[in-house]
């Protein structure tokens, strides 16, 4: 999404075509030297673990005693015991409940699940479309290239969020079985559809530059097949910029999901999503600000962590870019 690509290109900041792929150890060493990257990495890894184990963390609900870390979130776990809702934090619901008696901490955890799975799937779609179209255009004929550039022109002449909203609205209106995953499927499809042009252009530019390189010319002259050249020479060289671009885009996707949910066109109620929780909480901002602040904090921290990580990866993968 346009709103959050942090890779502002500095005047001399063009990810170089001939970026030497440093050994993984080198990259890791450089990453570990960066405290922001380390903190972000720890945060992201924790978040992934939490999302993966959400059902375990959320085992055993109210009323039956406290065995798990926090009470279980599900539709059957509306806590009906409170006389007034939303309820403030207590020993069962560590962050309190929302206006229906649903545990906020549980919803945050399941929200992480939603955010991260959407991010991973969208980024995979983006990488698939972006890399193949980018290579297709960059390594192919002039006509292919022209076609791709014009298509991306159209996509760029337009705010992504508007197109994504439109696609979601259209998909939403279809008569699909819309359980949470498939419902997110519409969301994932929409975000994937609007996410690829940036990456495609990046890959195309790199491919254009690389194919002029002598060793590739040489390989081609000696009769190596195009697919082999792409797999053996182009892709390995493209890996660094792709990884950097994708990490940064992940932050954008998480944000886009939250934004769409916030606008009522993402994950629908009552399924948990941070954006949705923010939207729901706005009505309670004067009476129960925690309801609003908790998802805001999660969303901001997560986006921030991915942004730090993306920047650090860029620096680590291509030391020449460091200022």
């Amino acid at each position, binding site marked *: 999404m346009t709103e959050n690509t942090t890779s502002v290109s500095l005047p001399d900041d063009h990810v170089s075509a001939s970026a030497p792929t440093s050994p993984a150890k080198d990259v890791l060493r450089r990453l570990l030297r960066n405290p922001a990257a380390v903190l972000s990495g720890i945060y992201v890894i924790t978040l992934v673990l939490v999302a993966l184990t959400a059902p375990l963390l959320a085992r055993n609900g109210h009323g039956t005693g406290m065995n798990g870390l926090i009470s279980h979130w599900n539709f059957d776990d509306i806590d009906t015991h409170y006389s007034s809702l939303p309820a403030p934090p207590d020993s069962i619901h560590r962050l309190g409940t929302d206006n229906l008696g649903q545990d906020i901490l549980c919803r945050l955890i399941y929200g992480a699940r939603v955010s991260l799975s959407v991010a991973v799937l969208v980024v995979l779609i983006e990488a698939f479309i972006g890399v193949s179209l980018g290579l297709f255009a960059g390594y192919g004929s002039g006509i292919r290239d022209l076609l791709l550039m014009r298509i991306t022109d159209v996509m760029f002449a337009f*705010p992504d969020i508007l197109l994504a909203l439109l696609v979601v609205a*259209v998909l939403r209106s279809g008569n699909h079985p819309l359980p949470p995953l498939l419902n997110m499927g519409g969301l994932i499809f929409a975000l994937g559809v609007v996410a690829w042009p940036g990456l495609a252009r990046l890959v195309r530019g790199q491919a254009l530059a690389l194919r002029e390189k002598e060793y590739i010319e040489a390989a081609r002259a000696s009769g190596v097949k195009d697919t082999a050249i792409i797999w053996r020479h182009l892709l390995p060289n493209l890996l660094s910029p792709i990884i950097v671009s994708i990490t940064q885009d992940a932050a954008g996707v998480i944000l886009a999901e939250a934004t769409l949910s916030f606008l009522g066109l993402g994950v629908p109620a009552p399924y948990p999503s941070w954006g949705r929780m923010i939207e729901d909480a706005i009505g309670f901002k004067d009476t129960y600000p925690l309801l609003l602040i908790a998802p805001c904090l999660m969303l901001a921290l997560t986006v921030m962590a991915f942004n730090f990580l993306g920047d650090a990866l860029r620096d680590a993968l291509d030391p020449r870019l460091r200022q």
Partner: protein
Amino acid sequence: MLNIILKRLGLAIPTLIAVSMLVFVVAHLAPSSPVDIIAGEKATPEQKARLAHEYGLDRPLPVQYGSYLWNIVAHGDFGRSFSRSQQPVSEMIKNDFPVTAQLALQAILFALIIGLPVGVFAALYHNSWFDRLAMSGVVAMVSVPSIVLGPVLVLFFAVRHPILPVSGWDSPKYTILPTIALGSRTAALMARFMRASLLDVLRQDYMRTAIAKGLSKGQAVWRHAIKNSFLPVLTVIGNSFGALLTGSFIVETIFQVPGIGYTSIDSISKRDYAVIQGMALLVALIFTVVNIAVDVLYGVIDPRVRSQEARA
């Protein structure tokens, strides 16, 4: 220069047509039609079929698109909203656009006022604690999305300390929170860019020469560095305009600002095709014009760019 502008404008027309086609097709791919909404919850299938016929929605898609395009070209007619008292879309655009433009301009101004000084000081005191703090702040600000910043600003400045209105767009004080919510991200980018640009200039030989010639560091910075480093920053303003326009969709919704973003999102949820299409075309037009303007500006500032036109 004029040639480039004309060429770019020429290229923009097919792009705009493609955008209008894209939006039209996507909107009409929806299995349920606006008739479902117009006819309401008690309508029978026959009633819906009749209304679809009266609205011309039962015609083949290409015919509908053709007549849509023809009405725009021949009559300047973008159709009428069915969810907002049959207003012509052209009227809605005329009403909404100035609001969005004002919001975007204020946000850019805000970004300049905050971002430039921070960037300058961060560069002058390179690697100082201020520099580090500012650059961490930049990443933080870039990461705080408007759906978080907006409600949090409201919480602190309209609910806890009710000094500013929660939402609306009546007088200048109503514009403060939306401007900050929209502009803070651009401010952070501006700071980062200004810093990088100034650092770049400070390393140049002529700066060293100037200082060697006896200008004090302060004089050298003011006379040469800031001026030279500011020019590239100008183009960032253009570049961030697109992001601002996108951001205004969300900020306008949070703060109930009656601009094109708010109207578009409202219309998407109401399936008001004519409005969605009109607004999308308008936004695409703004994007295109701003992009061309930025490229031209860039060419003016940096003649080297003029020759190599392939910027991604």
